[in-house]
């Protein structure tokens, strides 16, 4: 192929890739970022929960909790940089990827049931499924209303508060399906625990 026709063929490809990359890879994300910051600054920055200058966390990202006086989030399968379990590691999201027939799935659930029972020996209710299964992201900030009510007795005793008050708080923090038909009823554990701290 003569050099001239080759460069004539290469030019549209080269300029096309460069031009469209500039449009879609630089100008487009810059424009979205600018407008997002102007219209939805809180959401664009990660829906952070602050207390004064301190960042407590994000309303959308769960945290590992094992204080019996707080509501627990779901099990999390995220790992640390060393490859060891590091629940709710929001620098490396992920699920367990355990298959439904994998015996490890039942073993992990049994360990979790034992932890829940040890913290709440008198509770004879069956354990709700979301408290013994890891979420897909490992960062799920929500639990089902059943999982929150399951923990109400333990939280009430640990804080020396009447259980009815805790249950009312759970009810007040239960979100129904969005727009009435999207998604499942849920309780945001981050917000529930913050409200709990103000209950005294």
């Amino acid at each position, binding site marked *: 192929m003569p050099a001239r026709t080759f460069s004539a063929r290469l*030019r*549209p*490809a080269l*300029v096309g*890739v460069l*031009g*469209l*990359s500039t*449009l*879609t890879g630089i100008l*487009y994300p810059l424009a*979205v*970022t600018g407008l*997002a910051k102007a*219209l939805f600054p809180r*959401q*664009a*920055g*990660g829906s*952070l929960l602050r207390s004064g200058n301190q*960042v407590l966390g*994000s309303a*959308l*990202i769960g945290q590992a909790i094992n204080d019996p006086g707080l509501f627990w989030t779901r099990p999390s399968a995220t790992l640390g940089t060393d490859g060891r379990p590091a629940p709710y590691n*929001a*620098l*490396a*999201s*992920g*699920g*367990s*990827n*355990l*298959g*439904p*027939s*994998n*015996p490890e*799935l*039942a073993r992990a*659930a*049994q360990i979790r049931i034992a932890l829940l029972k040890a913290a709440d020996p008198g509770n004879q209710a069956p*354990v*709700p*499924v*979301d408290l*013994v*299964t*890891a*979420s*897909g*992201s490992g960062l799920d*900030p*929500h*639990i089902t209303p059943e999982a929150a009510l399951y923990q109400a007795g333990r939280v009430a005793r640990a804080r020396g508060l009447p259980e009815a008050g805790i249950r009312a708080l759970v009810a007040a923090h239960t979100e129904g399906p*969005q727009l009435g*038909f*999207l*998604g*499942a009823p849920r309780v945001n554990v981050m917000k529930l625990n913050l409200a709990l701290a103000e209950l005294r």
Partner: protein
Amino acid sequence: MNTAWLQALAYLGLLLILSAPLGTYIGRILEGERTILHPALAPVERALLRLMGVQGEEMEWKAYTGAILLFNLLGGLAVFALLKGQGHLPLNPGHMGGLPTDLAFNTAVSFTTNTNWQTYGGETTMSHLSQMLGLAVQNFLSAATAIAVLAALVRGFARRESKGLGNAWVDLVRSTLYILLPLSFIFALALVSQGVVQTFAGAVHTASGQGIALGPVASQVAIKMLGTNGGGFFNANAAHPFENPTPLSSFLQMLAILLIPAALCHAFGRMVRDRRQGWALLAAMTLLFVGALATTASAESRPNPQLAQIGVAQPAGNMEGKEVRFGVPGTALFATATTAASCGAVNSTHDSLSPLGGLVPLWLIQLGEVVFGGVGSGLYGMLLFALVGVFISGLMVGRTPEYLGKKIEAFEMKMVSIAILLPPAVVLVGTALGVLLPAALPSVSNPGPHGFTEVLYAFSSAANNNGSAFAGLNANTPFYNWTLAFAMLVGRYGTILPVLALAGSLARKKITPEGPGTLPTHTPLFVATLMGVVLLVGALTFLPSLALGPIAEQLSLR
């Protein structure tokens, strides 16, 4: 469970309603007519085409193919270079180093072929620059590529005794500029309103020491869905609360996945001057989708027998790998949509789906992703099956088969056969290697039939350019990075090349007027024939391997 029904009905209803006007709009763009966006975007289009030195002359099929391949080659090389060199480039607050060659190659191929198979974790591997200027750019350009290929094929049907299929450069620029960019812009902002993050800042650290990764996520997620790419900004993809924070954001993302593929059916009908033809294809897709969705949703809502035995209350269904905010209905719908299309984004970990709940997504991928399918690729795939449909019908009555007035002869059927059979061949051979070679076996993470399914899913996903995974499989090994990259290339270009050759051959034919013996291709009878062909080819090819994987697992689980 009535909200589950409402969600599914609202989803399909909205999808079908929105697809008609959008399809008309896309049809106008592909035929070079003026639209409402021309006053704003036409100057950009003219400037870019002038810089490229493109006058918009008609291309015959070989030139069209050459342009597409060169465009993808340069795009892929740019991503590869960016991934290798990201350690020395700006916008890298997490100080990510360059990628190893096998991983950089796999990822460049993956995003250029619209697969978005990811053997890396986004927030632990990629700089912000690699995400936005490498991966997100190919999200746009690979989708534009498939729209261009589809446009060429449709012109092959619509034109008579013509050599030209349009101009590939014009099609690529217009698809990006008028279709993908404006829609992405609107979707990105809608997603931010729900809580998807959009910032160039690095991770924040909380008072208690939790590090939280951030990034320019919304702009990338919008095109990841609209372009049926599926590559997540974060490792957990659309299960991550910053990629998909609310049930509404999930609903919008599912809508974005199938919106353009559904609309293209209408654009096709408009371009061949018979909108009923587009409706027929859309009807077949919708019916197949409903069957798949019902199966997944019912399988996932059942309790896991292992957990039932140890006394776990499972009113919510199978919740391992799922997010509470989506629940089983929102997850089953997402899993069905993402694998019906060539998207591959996931809002749960598919590896933890129940055996039958995982079988459906896997099989949808193996059918060639023609139930709506990927942007462009879904419809050109479905048109291939339509040709098989008229061919089989023609054999039954002893007439030369025709579709839209074009005689379907030996050359056309050869191209159709190659395009339909190459990906399954790669899937089956690749899976066999994956379970035979000692170098490959340690990658399998779950025991028993489920482990086999992990390998089968990986090759099905790669060779059909889906990108979702049974992610327990450790695919970041040289064996998987190279073989799956090969599978993605064959799956993409092993279809695009025969489709464009087919387009060239069809365009040269004359259009035979309809006669009393012509098989109408817009009737319920043809819709049923088409669905039968898709299901039959898929079942004949994959039932034995599905029996070894999910079906064996379902039977063993008690």
